[in-house]
Protein backbone atom coordinates (compact mmCIF):
# COMPACT_ATOMS: atom_id res chain seq x y z
CA UNK A 1 0.00 0.00 0.00
CA UNK A 2 2.41 2.68 1.22
CA UNK A 3 5.93 2.56 -0.13
CA UNK A 4 8.81 2.04 2.27
CA UNK A 5 10.55 5.45 1.90
CA UNK A 6 7.20 7.10 2.40
CA UNK A 7 6.63 5.00 5.48
CA UNK A 8 9.99 5.94 6.94
CA UNK A 9 9.26 9.59 6.25
CA UNK A 10 5.92 9.24 7.98
CA UNK A 11 7.44 7.67 11.05
CA UNK A 12 10.11 10.35 11.11
CA UNK A 13 7.48 13.09 11.12
CA UNK A 14 5.38 11.25 13.68
CA UNK A 15 8.26 10.74 16.07
CA UNK A 16 9.62 14.28 15.80
CA UNK A 17 6.28 16.04 16.17
CA UNK A 18 4.90 13.82 18.89
CA UNK A 19 8.11 14.20 20.86
CA UNK A 20 7.86 17.97 20.50
CA UNK A 21 4.30 17.84 21.79
CA UNK A 22 5.14 15.57 24.68
CA UNK A 23 8.46 17.16 25.53
CA UNK A 24 7.24 19.63 28.18
CA UNK A 25 5.61 16.80 30.11
CA UNK A 26 8.72 14.66 29.85
CA UNK A 27 10.82 17.60 30.90
CA UNK A 28 8.65 18.28 33.92
CA UNK A 29 8.85 14.61 34.80
CA UNK A 30 12.66 14.70 34.71
CA UNK A 31 12.86 17.92 36.69
CA UNK A 32 10.63 16.41 39.35
CA UNK A 33 13.47 14.06 40.29
CA UNK A 34 16.21 16.67 40.36
CA UNK A 35 17.78 18.51 43.23
CA UNK A 36 18.24 22.27 43.16
CA UNK A 37 21.87 22.19 41.93
CA UNK A 38 21.02 19.71 39.21
CA UNK A 39 18.34 22.03 37.90
CA UNK A 40 20.78 24.94 37.91
CA UNK A 41 23.22 22.88 35.87
CA UNK A 42 20.55 22.58 33.21
CA UNK A 43 20.63 18.82 32.85
CA UNK A 44 17.91 16.88 31.13
CA UNK A 45 18.31 13.56 32.94
CA UNK A 46 18.41 13.45 36.75
CA UNK A 47 21.27 11.67 38.55
CA UNK A 48 18.88 9.34 40.21
CA UNK A 49 15.15 8.85 40.32
CA UNK A 50 14.77 9.61 43.98
CA UNK A 51 11.33 10.38 45.29
CA UNK A 52 12.57 13.07 47.62
CA UNK A 53 10.76 15.90 45.85
CA UNK A 54 7.53 13.94 45.96
CA UNK A 55 7.82 13.42 49.67
CA UNK A 56 8.54 17.13 50.09
CA UNK A 57 5.57 18.29 48.08
CA UNK A 58 3.21 16.24 50.21
CA UNK A 59 4.81 17.73 53.30
CA UNK A 60 4.54 21.33 52.18
CA UNK A 61 0.99 21.20 50.95
CA UNK A 62 -2.03 19.24 52.12
CA UNK A 63 -1.77 17.73 48.64
CA UNK A 64 -3.47 14.48 49.55
CA UNK A 65 -6.35 16.51 50.87
CA UNK A 66 -6.44 18.56 47.68
CA UNK A 67 -6.35 15.42 45.56
CA UNK A 68 -9.26 14.02 47.49
CA UNK A 69 -11.16 17.29 47.08
CA UNK A 70 -10.48 17.34 43.37
CA UNK A 71 -11.64 13.77 43.11
CA UNK A 72 -14.85 14.40 45.03
CA UNK A 73 -15.63 17.52 43.06
CA UNK A 74 -14.85 15.91 39.69
CA UNK A 75 -16.78 12.74 40.45
CA UNK A 76 -19.63 14.84 41.81
CA UNK A 77 -19.88 16.99 38.71
CA UNK A 78 -19.56 13.91 36.53
CA UNK A 79 -22.43 12.10 38.23
CA UNK A 80 -24.53 15.24 38.43
CA UNK A 81 -24.05 15.96 34.75
CA UNK A 82 -24.86 12.39 33.79
CA UNK A 83 -28.07 12.47 35.79
CA UNK A 84 -29.29 15.91 34.77
CA UNK A 85 -28.27 15.70 31.11
CA UNK A 86 -29.59 12.21 30.53
CA UNK A 87 -32.98 13.11 32.02
CA UNK A 88 -33.22 16.17 29.77
CA UNK A 89 -32.03 14.29 26.69
CA UNK A 90 -34.60 11.59 27.37
CA UNK A 91 -37.39 14.14 27.46
CA UNK A 92 -36.21 15.67 24.18
CA UNK A 93 -36.06 12.34 22.37
CA UNK A 94 -38.77 10.14 23.85
CA UNK A 95 -41.56 12.49 24.89
CA UNK A 96 -43.63 14.46 22.42
CA UNK A 97 -44.77 17.67 23.99
CA UNK A 98 -45.77 21.18 23.11
CA UNK A 99 -43.01 23.74 23.52
CA UNK A 100 -40.24 21.26 22.93
CA UNK A 101 -38.63 23.47 20.29
CA UNK A 102 -38.75 26.44 22.61
CA UNK A 103 -37.07 24.63 25.46
CA UNK A 104 -34.54 23.21 23.06
CA UNK A 105 -33.75 26.73 21.93
CA UNK A 106 -33.35 27.73 25.57
CA UNK A 107 -30.74 24.99 25.96
CA UNK A 108 -28.90 26.14 22.84
CA UNK A 109 -28.87 29.71 24.08
CA UNK A 110 -26.96 28.70 27.20
CA UNK A 111 -24.09 27.69 24.93
CA UNK A 112 -23.75 31.29 23.81
CA UNK A 113 -23.32 32.60 27.33
CA UNK A 114 -19.72 32.28 28.44
CA UNK A 115 -19.35 31.16 32.01
CA UNK A 116 -16.97 34.03 32.70
CA UNK A 117 -19.65 36.57 31.80
CA UNK A 118 -21.84 35.30 34.61
CA UNK A 119 -19.25 34.61 37.25
CA UNK A 120 -19.76 37.78 39.26
CA UNK A 121 -23.44 37.20 40.10
CA UNK A 122 -22.74 33.50 40.45
CA UNK A 123 -20.12 34.23 43.04
CA UNK A 124 -22.65 36.27 45.01
CA UNK A 125 -25.31 33.58 44.67
CA UNK A 126 -22.94 31.04 46.18
CA UNK A 127 -21.99 33.53 48.85
CA UNK A 128 -25.65 34.24 49.71
CA UNK A 129 -26.34 30.52 49.90
CA UNK A 130 -23.40 30.33 52.27
CA UNK A 131 -21.81 27.80 49.97
CA UNK A 132 -18.32 29.28 49.80
CA UNK A 133 -15.82 26.55 50.62
CA UNK A 134 -18.34 23.78 50.13
CA UNK A 135 -18.51 20.92 47.71
CA UNK A 136 -21.98 21.90 46.52
CA UNK A 137 -20.72 25.39 45.73
CA UNK A 138 -17.99 23.86 43.58
CA UNK A 139 -20.16 21.32 41.79
CA UNK A 140 -23.83 22.25 41.55
CA UNK A 141 -23.49 25.14 39.06
CA UNK A 142 -22.05 22.71 36.50
CA UNK A 143 -24.63 19.94 36.62
CA UNK A 144 -26.73 21.28 33.75
CA UNK A 145 -24.79 21.22 30.51
CA UNK A 146 -26.21 21.89 27.07
CA UNK A 147 -23.32 20.16 25.33
CA UNK A 148 -23.82 17.04 27.43
CA UNK A 149 -27.53 17.04 26.75
CA UNK A 150 -26.94 17.26 23.00
CA UNK A 151 -24.31 14.54 23.09
CA UNK A 152 -26.70 12.14 24.81
CA UNK A 153 -29.61 13.27 22.67
CA UNK A 154 -27.64 12.29 19.57
CA UNK A 155 -27.18 8.82 20.95
CA UNK A 156 -30.72 8.44 22.25
CA UNK A 157 -32.01 9.33 18.80
CA UNK A 158 -30.38 6.22 17.39
CA UNK A 159 -32.52 4.03 19.65
CA UNK A 160 -35.40 2.72 17.53
CA UNK A 161 -38.82 4.02 18.54
CA UNK A 162 -40.08 0.43 18.40
CA UNK A 163 -38.04 -0.33 21.49
CA UNK A 164 -40.12 2.16 23.38
CA UNK A 165 -43.31 0.73 21.93
CA UNK A 166 -42.31 -2.82 22.75
CA UNK A 167 -41.62 -1.67 26.29
CA UNK A 168 -45.00 0.05 26.42
CA UNK A 169 -46.74 -3.17 25.40
CA UNK A 170 -44.74 -5.07 27.98
CA UNK A 171 -46.06 -2.59 30.54
CA UNK A 172 -42.85 -0.77 31.32
CA UNK A 173 -43.36 2.72 32.69
CA UNK A 174 -41.60 5.78 31.35
CA UNK A 175 -38.97 6.02 34.01
CA UNK A 176 -38.44 2.27 33.99
CA UNK A 177 -37.85 2.42 30.24
CA UNK A 178 -35.32 5.20 30.79
CA UNK A 179 -33.59 3.31 33.55
CA UNK A 180 -33.72 -0.25 32.27
CA UNK A 181 -33.37 0.27 28.52
CA UNK A 182 -32.22 3.75 27.45
CA UNK A 183 -29.36 4.13 29.92
CA UNK A 184 -27.85 0.65 29.49
CA UNK A 185 -28.11 0.92 25.70
CA UNK A 186 -26.33 4.29 25.75
CA UNK A 187 -23.46 3.15 27.93
CA UNK A 188 -20.81 4.34 25.47
CA UNK A 189 -21.94 7.93 25.27
CA UNK A 190 -22.51 8.04 29.01
CA UNK A 191 -18.89 7.00 29.44
CA UNK A 192 -17.79 9.67 26.99
CA UNK A 193 -19.73 12.39 28.76
CA UNK A 194 -18.58 11.10 32.13
CA UNK A 195 -14.91 11.19 31.13
CA UNK A 196 -15.34 14.62 29.59
CA UNK A 197 -17.06 15.95 32.71
CA UNK A 198 -14.47 14.48 35.03
CA UNK A 199 -11.58 15.79 32.97
CA UNK A 200 -12.87 19.33 32.61
CA UNK A 201 -13.81 19.57 36.26
CA UNK A 202 -10.48 18.22 37.45
CA UNK A 203 -8.78 20.88 35.35
CA UNK A 204 -11.09 23.73 36.35
CA UNK A 205 -9.24 26.76 37.62
CA UNK A 206 -11.14 30.03 37.83
CA UNK A 207 -14.21 28.88 39.76
CA UNK A 208 -12.35 27.03 42.54
CA UNK A 209 -10.06 30.05 42.76
CA UNK A 210 -13.09 32.22 43.55
CA UNK A 211 -15.01 29.78 45.72
CA UNK A 212 -12.28 28.29 47.90
CA UNK A 213 -10.86 30.76 50.35
CA UNK A 214 -9.28 28.18 52.64
CA UNK A 215 -7.85 24.72 52.16
CA UNK A 216 -10.94 22.78 53.32
CA UNK A 217 -12.30 22.02 49.83
CA UNK A 218 -9.49 23.52 47.75
CA UNK A 219 -8.65 21.56 44.61
CA UNK A 220 -5.24 20.53 43.30
CA UNK A 221 -5.21 23.17 40.57
CA UNK A 222 -5.36 25.93 43.14
CA UNK A 223 -2.84 23.94 45.14
CA UNK A 224 -0.46 24.20 42.19
CA UNK A 225 -0.83 27.94 42.07
CA UNK A 226 -0.17 28.06 45.79
CA UNK A 227 2.88 25.85 45.42
CA UNK A 228 4.29 27.84 42.55
CA UNK A 229 3.86 31.18 44.26
CA UNK A 230 5.37 29.88 47.53
CA UNK A 231 8.35 28.24 45.98
CA UNK A 232 9.64 30.96 43.68
CA UNK A 233 12.87 29.90 42.03
CA UNK A 234 14.15 27.84 44.87
CA UNK A 235 12.71 24.40 44.59
CA UNK A 236 11.49 23.73 41.09
CA UNK A 237 11.92 20.01 41.61
CA UNK A 238 9.23 20.05 44.27
CA UNK A 239 6.92 22.16 42.14
CA UNK A 240 7.29 19.75 39.22
CA UNK A 241 6.66 16.81 41.52
CA UNK A 242 3.40 18.53 42.39
CA UNK A 243 2.62 19.03 38.70
CA UNK A 244 3.23 15.37 37.94
CA UNK A 245 1.02 14.27 40.83
CA UNK A 246 -1.76 16.51 39.55
CA UNK A 247 -1.64 15.47 35.91
CA UNK A 248 -1.22 11.73 36.35
CA UNK A 249 -4.88 10.92 37.13
CA UNK A 250 -6.23 12.83 34.13
CA UNK A 251 -3.49 11.61 31.80
CA UNK A 252 -4.30 8.05 32.78
CA UNK A 253 -7.99 8.68 32.23
CA UNK A 254 -7.22 10.19 28.85
CA UNK A 255 -4.94 7.35 27.78
CA UNK A 256 -7.53 4.75 28.70
CA UNK A 257 -10.47 6.58 27.23
CA UNK A 258 -8.77 8.31 24.29
CA UNK A 259 -10.45 6.30 21.58
CA UNK A 260 -13.85 6.48 23.21
CA UNK A 261 -13.54 10.18 23.90
CA UNK A 262 -12.47 10.98 20.37
CA UNK A 263 -15.35 9.04 18.86
CA UNK A 264 -17.93 10.30 21.32
CA UNK A 265 -16.93 13.96 21.23
CA UNK A 266 -16.81 14.21 17.45
CA UNK A 267 -20.24 12.60 17.28
CA UNK A 268 -21.68 14.97 19.84
CA UNK A 269 -20.09 17.92 18.13
CA UNK A 270 -21.84 17.33 14.84
CA UNK A 271 -25.49 16.62 14.65
Amino acid at each position, binding site marked *: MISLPKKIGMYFLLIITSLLVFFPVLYAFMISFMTGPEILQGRFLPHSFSLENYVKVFERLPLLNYLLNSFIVSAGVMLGQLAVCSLAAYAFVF*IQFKGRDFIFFLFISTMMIPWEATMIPNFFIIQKLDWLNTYQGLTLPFF*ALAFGTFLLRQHFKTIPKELQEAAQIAGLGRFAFFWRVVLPVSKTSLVTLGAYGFLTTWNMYLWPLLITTNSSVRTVQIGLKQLQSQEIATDWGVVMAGVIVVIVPTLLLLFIGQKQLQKGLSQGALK
Partner: protein
Amino acid sequence: MNRQTKHGFWKKSVNGRTALLYLFPSILLFSVFVFYPMFRTIYLSFFLTDQAGNAALHVGLENYGYLLESSAFRNSMKATGLFVLYTVPIGIILSLFFALLANEKLKGIGFFRTLYSSTMGISVAASSVIWLFMFHPSIGMFNRVLSVLNLPQIQWLLDPEWALLSVSISTIWMNTGFSFLILLGGLQNIDEHLYESSRIDGAGYFYRLRRITLPMLSPTLFFIITISLINAFQSFGQIDILTKGGPSQSTNLIVYSIYREAFINYQFGTASAQAVILFIIILIVTILQFKLGERKVHYQ
Protein backbone atom coordinates in the same frame (compact mmCIF):
# COMPACT_ATOMS: atom_id res chain seq x y z
CA MET B 1 -69.44 17.15 28.69
CA ASN B 2 -67.54 19.96 30.33
CA ARG B 3 -65.96 17.58 32.73
CA GLN B 4 -64.94 15.40 29.86
CA THR B 5 -63.14 18.10 27.93
CA LYS B 6 -61.37 19.15 31.07
CA HIS B 7 -60.43 15.59 31.68
CA GLY B 8 -59.32 15.41 28.04
CA PHE B 9 -57.13 18.45 28.37
CA TRP B 10 -55.54 17.12 31.52
CA LYS B 11 -54.90 13.88 29.72
CA LYS B 12 -53.53 15.54 26.62
CA SER B 13 -51.07 17.59 28.61
CA VAL B 14 -49.76 14.54 30.43
CA ASN B 15 -46.78 14.36 28.08
CA GLY B 16 -45.95 17.99 28.63
CA ARG B 17 -46.09 17.53 32.37
CA THR B 18 -43.88 14.46 32.42
CA ALA B 19 -41.42 16.09 30.04
CA LEU B 20 -41.23 19.05 32.35
CA LEU B 21 -40.46 16.71 35.21
CA TYR B 22 -37.47 15.31 33.31
CA LEU B 23 -36.35 18.75 32.20
CA PHE B 24 -36.87 20.39 35.55
CA PRO B 25 -33.35 19.88 36.96
CA SER B 26 -31.78 21.37 33.85
CA ILE B 27 -34.19 24.25 33.64
CA LEU B 28 -33.80 25.08 37.33
CA LEU B 29 -30.01 24.96 37.20
CA PHE B 30 -29.85 26.97 33.98
CA SER B 31 -32.18 29.55 35.48
CA VAL B 32 -30.20 29.94 38.68
CA PHE B 33 -26.67 29.68 37.33
CA VAL B 34 -26.92 30.92 33.75
CA PHE B 35 -29.98 33.00 32.90
CA TYR B 36 -30.41 34.90 36.15
CA PRO B 37 -26.69 35.71 36.47
CA MET B 38 -26.59 36.83 32.85
CA PHE B 39 -29.45 39.28 33.42
CA ARG B 40 -27.92 40.29 36.70
CA THR B 41 -24.60 40.97 34.95
CA ILE B 42 -26.33 43.19 32.41
CA TYR B 43 -28.21 44.91 35.21
CA LEU B 44 -25.09 45.51 37.28
CA SER B 45 -23.28 46.92 34.28
CA PHE B 46 -25.54 49.99 34.56
CA PHE B 47 -24.66 50.59 38.19
CA LEU B 48 -21.92 51.46 40.56
CA THR B 49 -21.80 48.82 43.25
CA ASP B 50 -20.85 48.47 46.87
CA GLN B 51 -18.35 45.96 48.19
CA ALA B 52 -20.94 43.21 48.45
CA GLY B 53 -21.81 43.55 44.82
CA ASN B 54 -25.15 45.28 45.35
CA ALA B 55 -26.26 47.92 42.89
CA ALA B 56 -25.72 51.27 44.60
CA LEU B 57 -25.96 54.06 42.05
CA HIS B 58 -27.57 53.96 38.68
CA VAL B 59 -25.16 55.40 36.15
CA GLY B 60 -26.74 54.30 32.89
CA LEU B 61 -24.18 53.72 30.20
CA GLU B 62 -21.42 55.46 32.08
CA ASN B 63 -19.60 52.24 32.87
CA TYR B 64 -19.41 51.52 29.19
CA GLY B 65 -18.35 55.05 28.41
CA TYR B 66 -15.68 54.80 31.00
CA LEU B 67 -14.43 51.52 29.58
CA LEU B 68 -14.30 52.79 26.02
CA GLU B 69 -12.24 55.74 27.13
CA SER B 70 -10.00 53.82 29.45
CA SER B 71 -6.71 53.03 27.80
CA ALA B 72 -6.36 50.00 30.07
CA PHE B 73 -9.50 48.44 28.67
CA ARG B 74 -8.63 49.30 25.09
CA ASN B 75 -5.26 47.78 25.72
CA SER B 76 -6.91 44.68 27.12
CA MET B 77 -9.14 44.38 24.05
CA LYS B 78 -6.16 44.75 21.81
CA ALA B 79 -4.22 42.11 23.74
CA THR B 80 -7.20 39.76 23.59
CA GLY B 81 -7.55 40.30 19.85
CA LEU B 82 -3.89 39.65 19.23
CA PHE B 83 -3.94 36.63 21.51
CA VAL B 84 -6.86 35.13 19.55
CA LEU B 85 -5.08 35.90 16.29
CA TYR B 86 -1.86 34.24 17.46
CA THR B 87 -3.40 31.15 19.00
CA VAL B 88 -6.40 30.07 16.93
CA PRO B 89 -5.11 29.75 13.36
CA ILE B 90 -1.75 28.26 14.30
CA GLY B 91 -3.31 25.98 16.88
CA ILE B 92 -5.80 24.59 14.39
CA ILE B 93 -3.32 24.18 11.56
CA LEU B 94 -0.96 22.38 13.91
CA SER B 95 -3.69 20.08 15.23
CA LEU B 96 -4.90 19.38 11.71
CA PHE B 97 -1.38 18.48 10.70
CA PHE B 98 -1.06 16.11 13.65
CA ALA B 99 -4.46 14.63 12.96
CA LEU B 100 -3.62 13.99 9.30
CA LEU B 101 -0.38 12.29 10.36
CA ALA B 102 -2.11 10.24 13.01
CA ASN B 103 -4.88 9.20 10.64
CA GLU B 104 -2.47 7.11 8.53
CA LYS B 105 -2.79 3.41 9.01
CA LEU B 106 0.62 2.53 10.39
CA LYS B 107 1.81 0.19 13.07
CA GLY B 108 1.86 1.73 16.53
CA ILE B 109 -0.20 4.70 15.45
CA GLY B 110 -2.24 4.42 18.65
CA PHE B 111 0.84 5.38 20.64
CA PHE B 112 1.34 8.55 18.62
CA ARG B 113 -2.33 9.42 18.90
CA THR B 114 -2.04 9.17 22.65
CA LEU B 115 0.97 11.49 22.69
CA TYR B 116 -0.71 14.07 20.45
CA SER B 117 -3.84 14.10 22.56
CA SER B 118 -1.95 14.15 25.86
CA THR B 119 -2.21 17.88 26.45
CA MET B 120 -5.97 17.51 26.78
CA GLY B 121 -5.34 15.62 30.00
CA ILE B 122 -3.11 18.32 31.44
CA SER B 123 -4.79 21.15 33.25
CA VAL B 124 -4.22 24.76 32.40
CA ALA B 125 -2.68 25.27 35.82
CA ALA B 126 -0.22 22.38 35.47
CA SER B 127 0.69 23.37 31.91
CA SER B 128 1.24 26.92 32.97
CA VAL B 129 3.56 25.91 35.77
CA ILE B 130 5.57 23.75 33.35
CA TRP B 131 5.82 26.58 30.85
CA LEU B 132 6.63 29.06 33.58
CA PHE B 133 9.69 27.00 34.25
CA MET B 134 10.59 26.63 30.58
CA PHE B 135 10.32 30.40 30.17
CA HIS B 136 12.46 31.01 33.25
CA PRO B 137 15.02 33.71 32.38
CA SER B 138 18.08 31.91 33.75
CA ILE B 139 17.35 28.21 34.24
CA GLY B 140 14.50 27.84 31.72
CA MET B 141 15.02 25.60 28.76
CA PHE B 142 14.43 28.23 26.08
CA ASN B 143 17.13 30.57 27.22
CA ARG B 144 19.53 27.69 27.69
CA VAL B 145 18.97 26.63 24.11
CA LEU B 146 19.48 30.24 23.02
CA SER B 147 22.73 30.45 24.92
CA VAL B 148 23.95 27.19 23.43
CA LEU B 149 23.24 28.69 20.01
CA ASN B 150 25.02 31.88 21.06
CA LEU B 151 21.89 33.94 20.64
CA PRO B 152 20.88 36.82 22.93
CA GLN B 153 18.69 35.86 25.87
CA ILE B 154 15.01 36.74 25.81
CA GLN B 155 12.97 37.85 28.81
CA TRP B 156 10.08 35.70 27.67
CA LEU B 157 7.52 36.67 30.25
CA LEU B 158 9.04 39.87 31.53
CA ASP B 159 9.49 41.74 28.26
CA PRO B 160 6.27 43.49 27.17
CA GLU B 161 7.26 42.79 23.57
CA TRP B 162 7.47 39.07 24.15
CA ALA B 163 5.07 38.24 26.97
CA LEU B 164 1.89 37.94 24.88
CA LEU B 165 3.70 35.83 22.32
CA SER B 166 5.06 33.55 25.05
CA VAL B 167 1.64 33.12 26.59
CA SER B 168 0.26 32.38 23.14
CA ILE B 169 2.86 29.68 22.49
CA SER B 170 2.01 27.91 25.70
CA THR B 171 -1.71 28.25 24.97
CA ILE B 172 -1.33 26.74 21.52
CA TRP B 173 0.37 23.78 23.13
CA MET B 174 -2.37 23.41 25.75
CA ASN B 175 -5.15 23.41 23.17
CA THR B 176 -3.70 21.08 20.54
CA GLY B 177 -4.78 17.97 22.43
CA PHE B 178 -8.48 18.71 22.32
CA SER B 179 -8.46 20.05 18.75
CA PHE B 180 -6.44 17.05 17.63
CA LEU B 181 -8.90 14.62 19.18
CA ILE B 182 -11.91 16.26 17.57
CA LEU B 183 -10.24 16.56 14.16
CA LEU B 184 -9.03 12.98 14.25
CA GLY B 185 -12.57 11.89 15.04
CA GLY B 186 -13.79 13.91 12.06
CA LEU B 187 -11.18 12.36 9.78
CA GLN B 188 -12.14 8.88 10.82
CA ASN B 189 -15.77 9.55 10.04
CA ILE B 190 -14.94 10.10 6.37
CA ASP B 191 -16.13 7.20 4.30
CA GLU B 192 -13.23 4.95 3.26
CA HIS B 193 -14.89 4.35 -0.13
CA LEU B 194 -14.34 7.96 -1.14
CA TYR B 195 -10.60 7.42 -0.91
CA GLU B 196 -10.73 4.11 -2.66
CA SER B 197 -12.62 5.50 -5.60
CA SER B 198 -10.28 8.49 -5.85
CA ARG B 199 -7.30 6.16 -5.72
CA ILE B 200 -8.78 4.26 -8.66
CA ASP B 201 -9.01 7.59 -10.43
CA GLY B 202 -5.31 8.06 -9.69
CA ALA B 203 -5.56 11.10 -7.45
CA GLY B 204 -2.43 12.07 -5.50
CA TYR B 205 -2.19 12.76 -1.76
CA PHE B 206 -2.57 16.52 -1.93
CA TYR B 207 -5.33 16.32 -4.49
CA ARG B 208 -7.22 13.98 -2.16
CA LEU B 209 -6.52 16.29 0.75
CA ARG B 210 -7.92 19.28 -1.10
CA ARG B 211 -10.82 17.60 -2.84
CA ILE B 212 -11.98 14.99 -0.36
CA THR B 213 -10.48 15.31 3.09
CA LEU B 214 -10.88 19.03 3.73
CA PRO B 215 -14.39 19.36 2.27
CA MET B 216 -15.60 16.29 4.14
CA LEU B 217 -13.90 17.54 7.29
CA SER B 218 -15.39 21.00 7.00
CA PRO B 219 -18.17 20.53 9.59
CA THR B 220 -15.61 19.32 12.12
CA LEU B 221 -13.17 22.07 11.21
CA PHE B 222 -15.89 24.62 11.56
CA PHE B 223 -16.87 23.28 14.95
CA ILE B 224 -13.31 23.30 16.24
CA ILE B 225 -12.67 26.81 14.90
CA THR B 226 -15.67 28.08 16.83
CA ILE B 227 -14.74 26.24 19.99
CA SER B 228 -11.15 27.46 19.75
CA LEU B 229 -12.25 31.04 19.23
CA ILE B 230 -14.54 30.89 22.24
CA ASN B 231 -11.86 29.16 24.32
CA ALA B 232 -9.28 31.78 23.38
CA PHE B 233 -11.58 34.59 24.50
CA GLN B 234 -12.08 32.78 27.79
CA SER B 235 -8.42 32.12 28.62
CA PHE B 236 -7.60 32.87 32.21
CA GLY B 237 -5.48 30.30 34.06
CA GLN B 238 -2.31 30.72 32.02
CA ILE B 239 -2.45 34.50 32.52
CA ASP B 240 -2.98 34.18 36.25
CA ILE B 241 0.01 31.87 36.65
CA LEU B 242 2.40 33.06 33.94
CA THR B 243 2.12 36.85 33.92
CA LYS B 244 -0.71 38.14 36.09
CA GLY B 245 -1.66 40.38 33.19
CA GLY B 246 1.74 42.03 33.03
CA PRO B 247 4.25 43.18 32.15
CA SER B 248 2.72 46.64 31.79
CA GLN B 249 -0.71 45.17 31.05
CA SER B 250 0.51 43.54 27.85
CA THR B 251 -1.18 40.22 28.64
CA ASN B 252 -4.23 41.55 30.43
CA LEU B 253 -6.77 39.45 28.52
CA ILE B 254 -10.43 40.26 28.95
CA VAL B 255 -11.36 37.52 31.42
CA TYR B 256 -8.36 38.32 33.53
CA SER B 257 -9.33 41.95 33.35
CA ILE B 258 -12.87 41.12 34.52
CA TYR B 259 -11.47 39.01 37.32
CA ARG B 260 -9.16 41.75 38.49
CA GLU B 261 -11.74 44.48 38.24
CA ALA B 262 -14.28 42.45 40.20
CA PHE B 263 -12.40 40.41 42.74
CA ILE B 264 -9.32 42.51 43.35
CA ASN B 265 -10.55 46.07 42.75
CA TYR B 266 -14.18 45.33 43.75
CA GLN B 267 -15.49 47.39 40.83
CA PHE B 268 -18.37 45.08 40.04
CA GLY B 269 -20.13 47.60 37.83
CA THR B 270 -17.33 48.09 35.35
CA ALA B 271 -16.41 44.41 35.63
CA SER B 272 -19.98 43.57 34.65
CA ALA B 273 -19.81 45.95 31.73
CA GLN B 274 -16.72 44.10 30.53
CA ALA B 275 -18.50 40.80 31.04
CA VAL B 276 -21.35 42.04 28.87
CA ILE B 277 -18.86 42.96 26.17
CA LEU B 278 -17.33 39.49 26.42
CA PHE B 279 -20.81 38.04 26.11
CA ILE B 280 -21.51 40.10 23.00
CA ILE B 281 -18.25 39.00 21.40
CA ILE B 282 -19.02 35.33 22.04
CA LEU B 283 -22.56 35.85 20.82
CA ILE B 284 -21.29 37.31 17.55
CA VAL B 285 -18.85 34.43 17.11
CA THR B 286 -21.62 31.87 17.67
CA ILE B 287 -24.09 33.62 15.41
CA LEU B 288 -21.45 33.88 12.71
CA GLN B 289 -20.85 30.18 13.07
CA PHE B 290 -24.53 29.44 12.55
CA LYS B 291 -24.87 31.82 9.61
CA LEU B 292 -21.70 30.86 7.82
CA GLY B 293 -21.97 27.24 8.84
CA GLU B 294 -25.22 26.78 7.00
CA ARG B 295 -23.88 28.14 3.75
CA LYS B 296 -20.24 27.26 3.51
CA VAL B 297 -19.90 23.94 5.13
CA HIS B 298 -20.29 20.75 3.23
CA TYR B 299 -22.31 18.32 5.30
CA GLN B 300 -22.35 14.65 4.53
